[in-house]
């Protein structure tokens, strides 16, 4: 067990150092900071609800930076390591395929955490500054706890996408194919809750017990509803309507989904020829 943890941490450290020095992170942080600063300067263009608009904008920048990191750096790191045969260098050590998957995931998630944390700190200070510049009527409340909760929610969402990228890398050969599938996955996850709601409202014949309804519910299990981890609205509300049980269950279910996807990725990697 100790040796397994040592191997996983060695791979994680390798992935982390390689990513940090690739300056991908630095470039993303600089880009995101520029976008966040632009949000501060252009807040005057918002006619009303400046607090909500600013908060949404800043958290969206963090979300976008995370997605760019996942789709370009993470996909490259995992898929290209196989194309370039650098995976042989790692697996020529006494490291199992599962340990490689877990170590790579942890290394990339650590880089994502640094990205989120640094942008989150800047976003927090930006919101505080914006709040001081405005009258109370435009920006009454700033819930710091829910802001941190929103960042956790974003992080967990992106870790789920990272796990899916690892799964696709285990199934497919070629970084471009993995990239396309990952982007498609993300768009389907974003769209299914909307489709489900629209179907419920517009087609009166769809009821519980209908096969089509079950199909949509089944798809919703495979393509999770990321909006359940979106707590942006609660940051600026006086009395947020979040229910503790719903919030905790959203985190627990997402963590469970993450574990299941990673387990499948480990299984696929252990079965395939390199």
């Amino acid at each position: 067990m100790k040796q397994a943890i040592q191997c996983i941490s060695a791979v994680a450290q390798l992935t982390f150092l390689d990513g940090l020095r690739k300056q991908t992170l630095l470039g993303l942080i600089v880009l995101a900071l520029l976008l966040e600063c632009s949000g501060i300067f252009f807040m005057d263009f918002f006619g009303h609800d400046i607090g909500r608009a600013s908060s949404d904008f800043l958290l969206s920048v963090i979300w976008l930076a995370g997605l760019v990191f996942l789709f370009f750096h993470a996909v490259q790191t995992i898929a290209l390591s196989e194309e370039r045969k650098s995976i042989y260098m790692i697996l020529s050590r006494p490291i199992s395929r599962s340990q490689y998957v877990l170590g790579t995931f942890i290394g990339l998630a650590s880089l994502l955490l640094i990205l989120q944390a640094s942008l989150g700190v800047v976003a927090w200070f930006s919101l505080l500054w914006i709040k001081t510049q405005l009258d109370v009527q435009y920006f009454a409340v700033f819930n710091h706890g829910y802001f941190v909760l929103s960042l956790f929610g974003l992080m967990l969402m992106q870790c789920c996408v990272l796990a899916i990228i690892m799964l696709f890398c285990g199934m497919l050969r070629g970084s471009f194919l993995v990239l396309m599938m990952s982007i498609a996955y993300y768009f389907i996850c974003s769209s299914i809750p909307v489709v489900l709601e629209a179907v419920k409202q517009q087609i009166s014949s769809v009821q519980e017990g209908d096969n089509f309804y079950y199909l949509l519910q089944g798809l919703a299990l495979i393509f999770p509803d990321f909006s359940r981890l979106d707590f942006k609205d609660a940051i600026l509300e006086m009395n947020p309507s979040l229910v503790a049980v719903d919030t905790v269950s959203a985190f627990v279910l997402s963590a469970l989904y993450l574990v299941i996807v990673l387990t499948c990725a480990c299984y696929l990697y252990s079965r395939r020829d390199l």
Partner: protein
Amino acid sequence: MIQFNDVDKEYPSELGENNVFPALSQVSFQLEEGQSLGMIGSNGAGKSTCIRLMMGFMKHSAGSVAVFGSSPHSSQHRNIGYLPEVTAFPQNLKCIELLRFAAKTCAMPKKEVEASIEYWLTRLGLWDVRFRLLRNFSKGMQQRASFAMALVHDPKLLILDEPMSGLDPVGRMEIVALIQELREKGKSILFCSHVLDDVEKLVDQVLILHQGKVCFQGSVSELCQSQADWLVVGQDLQQHRFSSREELSVYMQENADNIKLVKHHEDFESAFLRTVKESVAI
């Protein structure tokens, strides 16, 4: 140490094609402890496929592969030093970080790690550049770093795929000397190379592969002796060659007291080429 018994390996066909590609067919050989085996063959012969099967990177289609007496498994890599044909590292690591990673994964005691890293980096001429990023290394330096990574944990079995690739003549000499030293220490070595001179010097046994089949396994001398010519050496110590039996017969009658027959062994390269040609003819 390594045992292949009637191993087949087929690669799945590409999209739109029906046939599988047979990379290996009924390949059998073994490498005993303390032995060195040179695996040679033309491009596409199946050498790298054999190595990937030994390392557990892929599974065989038929037959059996055993390394240290059991099926290939990642836990065996603690005792294997593998030098791949293509050196590919995460390019943003420092050389010393790569070796620390290699040592950490093999659960080497901490006291031994730094001593071993220092020894191998110094031996391979990389000590002064240990803090440089691998992306700034030349091809030869990357090859040496890969070699250091294969040796840092003192493995029992070395699998070297084209170890001289990218090295200058001085570097090649040093690596040849290093491999000879490792042989003398009792390491088992599986050595793939296109440079037949190096194979001839460094191995006890030779395995010739062609189009996924074994053409020959045995010692270098057995390979070269298997088709030896007889030469007539005259009093002037010159070797004479004759275009016909009649010419030979006349010469021997005229110089009966002053000639001797010498068994002429093929050189290694000729023997290898002849063996491959014969296997194609079959």
